[in-house]
């Protein structure tokens, strides 16, 4: 019985810990997802205006170039035009936008600067080669659509926004702006605040779960102790009161066992021996029923009286199941209660059995019938069994 209880308890712990881990895992996963969604949305919200301004600049550059036959050559040749475009691009530079520049792609598929609005120390020369870092730069010449490129590995850059400047359905120039890491860092600082709050909530939840589990196990342990008779290690009357209404009487045979002349044992040998007799009698009952069925229930009803609920079996006939009471009777009769080094004590019990407790309206009524049968045995000389069908 104890092994089963231990296994049950261990299994329960594993299930509970698994469930808690699953919940925490889910919360963490959702938190990370949420964080990524928020970051994406915040980037979109905080950059949408800049994107619009950049688009307008691309249109303005196109307007400046007017009816030019070759945008690239015209800019290369016209220093005044370069300066005017540079002035426009300089307006885009802010604390968040690090670079703004105009590129073209030569016949060797190499990107080159036409205009760069960077500070003098970082300013690229006209026609200077520019090694791009993503296929997206080439794709813009194919689909002719603006795009933003997120940089994972670049020094101090977070995202780039590139806009095509189209002439006769062909991309001639690309206007590019690079956002500094500062932009994303600002966004991240807001997310960090949210993240900290979520971590605190998760930690509180985690602690709450731990406390809940500890309390649940403690409660389970306390409740278990409250139902067990400390002397005999069988269920006590509290257990019967708690479970009385839930016991399916049709599934059990109800037996009442009373130790014969127990008062005499107490009076003659003292309460210590009395306690020993109770303890050993309960142990014999438990050992006897354990060898038959783990589902049988033993309750110390009070004093020297025990209730034994023997589970009926579909395979065995009721009378066969009654044999367990015969074995209890004989085992106790044969047991030598060692009360000192030199002296053993033999005792007997009387047993009253109600074979069909379900015939009665409740446990109490069914018990009374078994108890009456027990009383009959006592009247007829003890150490026997009386069965009521």
């Amino acid at each position, binding site marked *: 019985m104890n092994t089963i209880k231990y296994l049950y308890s*261990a299994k329960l*712990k*594993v299930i*509970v*810990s*698994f469930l*808690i*881990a699953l919940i*925490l*895992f889910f919360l*963490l*996963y959702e938190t*990370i997802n949420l*964080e*990524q969604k928020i970051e994406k949305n915040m980037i979109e919200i905080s950059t949408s205006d800049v994107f619009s301004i950049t688009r307008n600049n691309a249109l303005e550059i196109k307007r400046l170039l007017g009816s030019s036959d070759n945008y690239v050559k015209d800019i290369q040749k016209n220093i005044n035009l370069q300066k005017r475009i540079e002035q426009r691009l300089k307006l885009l530079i802010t604390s968040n936008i*690090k*670079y703004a*520049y105009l590129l073209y792609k030569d016949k060797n598929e*190499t990107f080159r600067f036409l205009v760069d609005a*960077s500070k003098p120390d*970082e300013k*690229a*020369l006209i026609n*200077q*080669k*520019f*090694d*791009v*870092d993503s296929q997206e730069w080439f794709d813009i010449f194919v689909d002719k659509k603006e795009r933003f490129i997120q940089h994972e*590995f*670049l*020094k*101090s*850059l977070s995202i780039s926004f590139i806009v095509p400047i189209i002439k006769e359905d062909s991309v001639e120039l690309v206007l590019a702006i*690079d956002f500094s890491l500062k932009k994303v860092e600002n966004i991240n600082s807001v997310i960090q605040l949210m*993240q900290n709050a979520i971590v605190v909530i998760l930690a509180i939840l*985690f602690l709450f779960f731990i406390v809940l*589990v*500890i309390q649940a*196990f403690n409660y389970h342990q306390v409740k278990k102790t409250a139902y067990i008779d400390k002397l005999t290690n069988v269920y006590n009357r509290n257990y019967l009161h708690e479970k009385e209404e839930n016991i399916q009487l049709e599934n059990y045979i109800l037996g009442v066992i009373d130790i014969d002349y127990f008062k005499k044992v107490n009076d003659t040998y003292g309460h210590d021996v009395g306690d020993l007799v109770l303890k050993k009698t309960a142990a014999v009952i438990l050992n006897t029923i354990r060898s038959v069925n783990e589902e049988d229930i033993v309750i110390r009803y009070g004093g020297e009286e025990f209730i034994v609920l023997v589970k009926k079996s579909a395979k065995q006939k009721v009378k066969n199941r009654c044999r367990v009471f015969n074995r209890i009777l004989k085992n106790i009769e044969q047991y030598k209660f060692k009360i000192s080094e030199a002296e053993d004590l033999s005792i007997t019990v009387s047993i009253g059995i109600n074979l069909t407790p379900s015939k009665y309206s409740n446990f109490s009524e069914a018990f009374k019938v078994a108890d009456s049968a027990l009383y009959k045995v006592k009247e007829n000389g003890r150490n026997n069994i009386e069965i009521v069908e």
Partner: protein
Amino acid sequence: MGILMKNLILIIVLFSLSYADTYTFLVNKYDKEMELESKIIKKIAKISVKQKVVLFIPKITKNEMKFYSKLFTLSNSCEEANFIFVKKNIGNINLCKNKPGKLYFTNNYKKLLNNKDYFGAFFWSKSRPNIVFIKKRLDKMLISLPNTYQQFVEDI
């Protein structure tokens, strides 16, 4: 409670580690740049110098030395080196000019254009790594680059 705690801690630790980069920048960005730069210079030096590369970086810093010493045999003087990578603003790179067989590389595009001693440059343009070789100087120095490097060659 032992099983419960062990399971929880194990799962949370594994999950958190798998997402560690979401939370923090674990590596110093400056070190990442330096590491990338040293690896690129290693490749360029290897294909440019016919024999074992002995590198000299004028006014080398401790941090540069940390990364470059892992990949190169470093020299304290220009004389003993066969590949000189000029990163700092130094007035005169002609320390070894009279001694042939040395290749000069820079990290500045304008220096590359203005000084014919340099055959190429590695520099950061708009925070992106850029490489430029000058064709005439490669030819003059009898440096032959593999096809994969042709995209960096400029016929200026």
